[in-house]
């Protein structure tokens, strides 16, 4: 099992706001799963819990065979096992696209030459190779989101977590970026967990897990 979330509870404001109420989710290696539900149902929090960005109140989170319980594990997962794409690209506007994409390589202490080779390969695959030297502020919305996708894949993670990755794009870019995302994940045999409230995008995934009021329907299996 690549991702195992079992009976996870998460609340904010000293327990006053409960967001996850006993969530369970299982994702096999290479699985492509859409988390669907209305805004505020806990999709983003569940992704944060899987990546270790949020600590759980109780329950089990196991990713790539490791229990996400401490800081070193979280950092190891984020450096090598998990790539994260957000609704907003969150690239640093004054850095070039290439510099932004090299941030995970710096974090992981990777070799520059290897990082650049991988950057070129991914940039070719996502169609932003000619934009690598541009500052982020000079890129279009679609290019920025492709750049964010490249950054997420720089350390060749086994799992890609995407939180509404096309939510901020227009109609034409939405389809293109999502096609690209699926192609990259499928061709490399990676695991994808996608949070979306777009039924059309969700329908193109292998499995849909519906969330409502902090719980997964059908036990997330």
């Amino acid at each position: 099992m690549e991702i195992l979330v079992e009976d996870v509870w998460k609340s904010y404001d000293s327990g006053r706001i409960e967001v996850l109420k006993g969530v369970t989710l299982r994702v096999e290696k290479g699985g492509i799963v859409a988390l669907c539900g209305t805004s505020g149902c806990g999709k983003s929090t569940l992704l944060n819990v899987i990546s270790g960005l949020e600590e759980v109140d109780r329950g089990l989170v196991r990713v790539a065979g490791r229990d996400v319980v401490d800081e070193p594990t979280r950092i190891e997962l984020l450096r090598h096992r998990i790539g994260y794409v957000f609704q907003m690209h969150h690239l640093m506007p004054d850095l070039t696209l290439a510099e932004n994409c090299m941030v995970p390589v710096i974090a992981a202490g990777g070799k520059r030459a290897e990082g650049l080779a991988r950057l070129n390969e991914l940039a070719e695959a996502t169609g932003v190779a000619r934009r690598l030297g541009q500052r982020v502020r000079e890129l279009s919305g679609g290019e920025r989101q492709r750049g964010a996708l490249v950054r997420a894949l720089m350390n060749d993670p086994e799992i890609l977590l995407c939180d509404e990755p096309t939510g901020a794009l227009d109609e034409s870019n939405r389809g293109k970026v999502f096609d690209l995302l699926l192609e990259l994940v499928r061709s490399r045999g990676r695991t994808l967990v996608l949070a979306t409230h777009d039924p059309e995008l969700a329908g193109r995934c292998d499995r849909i897990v519906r969330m409502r009021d902090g719980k997964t329907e059908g036990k997330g299996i």
Partner: protein
Amino acid sequence: MSLWRMVFTNLRRHRVRTAIGAAGIALGVATMLSVVGLLGGAVKMFERILQSDSEVVVFEKNVSDLFFSNVPVEVAGELEKQPFVKDARPVLFTIITAPGRPVVTCFGISPDDPRLKKGEWLQGSAADFTEQKNGVVLGERAADFLNAKAGGTIELGQGTYPVAGVLRMENGFENGGVFMPLGTCQREFHKEGLCSVVTVALADGHGSAEVKEWMGKNHKRLTALENEEFSRSYSQFKIMKTTAWVVGGCAFLLGGLSVTNTMILSVFGRIKELAIARVCGFSRGQVARMIFGESLLVSAIGTALGWALSVGGLHALRAVPQLQGYIDPRIGWMEVAGALSLAVFTALAGALYPAWYAANLKPAEALRFE
């Protein structure tokens, strides 16, 4: 791109903020080096007065200031008879008043004192500087502000003295001072038979230890120190140097606050970026190193600017006629090392809270931050 490149880029893209932080440090460094340079220069000038062609200074033990030291003039004569002494000169340091000038440095020296030979005689001659003629010699600046010329007279203290000559001296204290024949000076200040110090030039092949031993045996109330020992131990020099470092250090710490401010603004202004760095796998340590790196770089820029400012400022001050001879614009390696140490300390201390804050950001919360 390395972590250092990220550090550099972060500073470059917020140029104004970086410049303000660096300016704070620069002003701190400039103030510190200038104050240390100015007071250090003054100390060096005073040292040179004592070190004029001599290696050892004899003065009264446990005096807080050389002006209060009383050494019998006969000691100079006794010393000159010793085989290890080439020359021993009594010098009486005093402060004298003149019309419109309540404080004028006065040196009571023997007429054949080598100081008079070192200066450039602008007016008059050494021949008129004798006990019998009672004439005084003025430094060029003193002659200027006392409006006196050779051949005229001048009121000093309780008496009126003929001006034997005007000398241009390299040393600011001497150039702005008055030289009196030793006997005349003793009478003026009721210090008959006494001087402040005896400066001793050693005979070839002899060392200061012989003078010290002789003093220990023959004049227990007096002490003999090598010039360097004297500079290190003289309490007035210590006070001046300590004051310089304290004033400079305070200026530096004020500059350090600007670094803290800059780094806090820098962290608060990019909370989402820092969160993304964490999402990309940056550890808390890496985030902290990045913030400390930025602070160190701001501090390094500020230190370089401050050093340039202080060197330029001291050279400019040296060009001011009233300050000529008082300022030594050389900044020694000790001062530079001190400023660098304070710069590193300031950078690290200034970045402590911002780095702690940045390292402990919760990425998920920070990404929701508006």
